């Protein structure tokens, strides 16, 4: 079925953008799945390789330590370093964030409570002096070595519960195979984001962990919207008069129809995040925003990609293993190898009324489970007999 979607283009063909706008692109999302899967696997493999070699760049929240921050428009990294070393802070890491923020970090967690408190105060005073402000204008964060781990553990707990809840929800609201495809797409996003973080050595903080959780939610959100359309379109697939469309082709059609929406959605999600990253973090030096922004940016890109190029082809792959859809594919191949519905006709088809299609989906569900149990017969008597019953 790989080359099945060369559409007969109607009237004057608009430009590529125009076609996306009108939902009449003819990109073969399902047929070229090998390409998409290969791209993803390469990215993930590189990420995992980097992870096993370089590991993560963990922030102080995971290692424990103290950071101080001050706004000092007229200072420099050298001055700041000298100032904090003068009060006895060994091996400080001094960074300039944004246009006038300075951040000093050091691993002083081995000090006892009182020593720690007094050194924290001394450094704050020194930094205030270097910046020409009162020490009350210096911020600081001290973290015990187990805190980041605690946050991450709780986040992982949340993640596992979320996985289970969402898989159940999609299984009930849509169907188990969609849940599986969405789940794999979500794991894909997780692996890609984690890989990119290791590869580029971006620092991991608890904020990053939060952001990654959000991404997984968003990736699913995106996938659900696409699958909703697939379900709409495939609702009547088995009984439609033009029953010469395979499930894969239907998915393809749905993807092309929702391409404008997918692109728009990804853009409106990424634009604010980009603003967070560039305006909030780079210009104004808010590190929390940077931590969020970066992870969200990487994850949203991956999420947008995976809903279109991973989740949907996977769904087609899973569904076409069902005997009735395999039979459909067989028939379609024999009858007319080059036919597809025009988007307009598909829209008509999809809009035939929500009630009927809900019924069709429900029937699909029970049938699927029954068929999986038995040996899949190659679309013969049994399947047909059932089909007749339905008429």
């Amino acid at each position, binding site marked *: 079925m790989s080359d099945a979607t060369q559409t007969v283009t109607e*009237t004057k063909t608009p430009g590529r953008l125009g076609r996306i*706008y*009108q*939902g009449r692109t003819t990109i073969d999302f399902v047929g070229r799945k090998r390409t998409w899967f290969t791209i993803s696997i390469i990215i993930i493999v590189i990420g995992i390789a980097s992870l096993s070699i370089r590991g993560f760049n963990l922030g102080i929240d995971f290692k424990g330590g103290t950071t101080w921050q001050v706004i000092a428009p007229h200072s420099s990294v050298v001055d700041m370093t000298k100032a904090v070393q003068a009060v006895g802070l060994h091996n400080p890491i001094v960074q300039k964030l944004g246009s006038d923020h300075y951040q000093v970090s050091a691993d002083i967690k081995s000090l006892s409570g009182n020593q720690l*408190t007094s050194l924290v105060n001394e450094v*704050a005073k020194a930094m205030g002096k270097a910046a020409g402000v009162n020490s009350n204008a210096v*911020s600081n*964060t*001290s973290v*015990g070595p187990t*805190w980041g781990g*605690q*946050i991450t553990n709780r986040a992982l707990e*949340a993640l596992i519960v*979320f996985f289970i*809840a*969402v898989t159940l*929800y999609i299984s009930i*609201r*849509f169907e188990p195979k969609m849940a599986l495809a969405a789940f794999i797409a979500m794991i894909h996003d997780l692996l890609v984001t984690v890989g990119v973080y290791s590869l580029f050595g971006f620092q991991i903080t*608890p904020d990053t*962990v*939060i952001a990654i*959780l*959000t991404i997984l*939610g*968003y990736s699913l*959100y995106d996938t*659900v*919207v696409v699958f*909703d359309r697939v379900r709409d379109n495939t609702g009547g697939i088995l009984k439609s008069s033009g029953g010469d469309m395979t499930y894969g082709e239907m998915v393809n059609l749905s993807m092309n*129809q*929702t391409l*404008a929406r997918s692109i*728009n*959605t990804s853009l*409106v*999600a*990424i*634009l*604010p*995040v*980009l*603003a*967070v990253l560039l*305006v*909030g973090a780079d*210009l104004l*030096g*808010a590190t*929390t*925003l940077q931590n*969020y*922004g970066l992870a*969200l940016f990487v994850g949203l890109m991956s999420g947008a990609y995976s809903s279109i190029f991973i989740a949907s082809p996977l769904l087609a792959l899973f569904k076409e293993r069902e005997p009735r859809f395999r039979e459909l594919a067989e028939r379609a191949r024999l009858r007319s190898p080059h036919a597809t519905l025009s*988007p*307009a006709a598909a*829209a*008509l088809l*999809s809009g035939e009324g929500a009630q009927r299609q809900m019924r069709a989906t429900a029937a699909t569900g029970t049938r699927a489970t029954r068929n999986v149990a038995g040996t899949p017969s190659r679309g013969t008597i049994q399947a047909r007999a059932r089909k007749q019953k339905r008429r």
Partner: protein
Amino acid sequence: MAQQVGSRRNLIVSLVLTIAIAFGALAATMTLGWGPKLGLDLAGGLSVVYKPATPASNADMQEVVTVLSNRVNGLGVSGATVNLQGKNVVVSVPGVTDARAVLKEVGQTAQLLFRPVLCETSVDKKTTPVANGKLPACGAQYLMTAANLAVNTSTGNPTNQIPLDPAFAGIRSTSPQNDLKKNEVLLPVLGSPGVRLVLGPAQLTGKAVHKAQVGQTPAGAWLVNYTLTKSGSPAWDKVAQANFHAEVGIELDGVVQSAPLILPNQASFTSFNGQGQISGSFTEGSAKTLANAMEFGSLPVRLIPQDSVVVSPTLGHSSLVAGLGAGLVGLLLVLLYTILYYRALGLVIVLGLATTAALLWAIISALGHTSLAPSFDLAGITGIIVSIGITVDSYIVYFERLKDEARAGRSIRTSVDRGFKSAWRTVLAADTVSLLAAVLLYLIAVGDVRGFAFFLGLSTVMDVVITWYFTRPLVILLGRRGSESTSALSMAAGLTPGVSVHE
């Protein structure tokens, strides 16, 4: 297919009501001067997360919260909160300028001091402080020395009743600043209003105590058993020797917890061998309080700071500006894009977002007035910024459906109804996933994550509400207005019906 989603009247009522409620609520909160309760990363301030050093029961942790609350409130800062998050205690004090000084006070494990009792005195309401906390000496006849008390070794009670020294009646109790180890102090006694004690310099600290537990005598009287550390044992013996047959006051946080007589039943001093017992007229509660005080300072468990954050007000302000700035820029970019893409329909998005924003701000402000919601911090701002994408997506899903319907040759009038029906299902399904994520994160995660999840969840709910009560009536009304060609919606490209339906 009678696909009327609602009568014209209902739609108008819904639309007008939504706008009125949203902007009315906004105006109301603004007139009341309510604003969001800013988190300390925006307002400046201090936050510490303490973890119990050893596993602690819920009752213990509740007590920790009570003690820390008293300590923080005793410092005279406003708006401080102490609460439990799982097994952790989170202390946050927003808006203080000298946060590091506050942190020092709060974080200190209160010190337990053993001081010899010099004499007793009464409480007088018209008390005056003494310069530098320097107290006059006790009168010789009031001194609670072993000689004056003359303990009867068979009963264990003093033979002499020593009167209260009137010289101290007009003097104020020693202030915390002057309550130093090396000073003589005048302090109130726990559970004995009307009596205060003049105590000498501390001879030992609570570090000598290893464990203290509540016990009962065979007769059922409550008492406290304690054991001493290796180095504490000889030190305690020294103190006991020095105050043999006299009283030693156990002071915690400026209050004498108990002032037991040392070894009343023996004629001469012998070593305690690292353990001892305090008896007296205890109740179970007062015995437990003393045991806790001796073992932990006033806390039932030792606390280890996990994460302590001090944010200066200047830095907080700059973060607030960065967060709001980023949000505004992001919002403008999104609006610009949707207007360019959807033209007239883009204006619907602008109006919708304005209504959402008004309602959201009003709700956040109102919540800020209560203590129900997490405070509004950078993580929360990020949650809301992320939700811009989800909110706008609901419009996009609808409008794309609309375009499909129109392209299939339906009239705009029918398209707006049918398009909404299918879009609504999608929006509900997708928002459910988003809400699921937010609720689970809020319930399970700790720290900043909760604020983030709360505001993400709130705006997701808002999205569902606005889609149904605002977007639906507005677009459907616009779609029904006028003839096909002059309809406001046909201005939006891609919505001209009849093009390329049957080639």
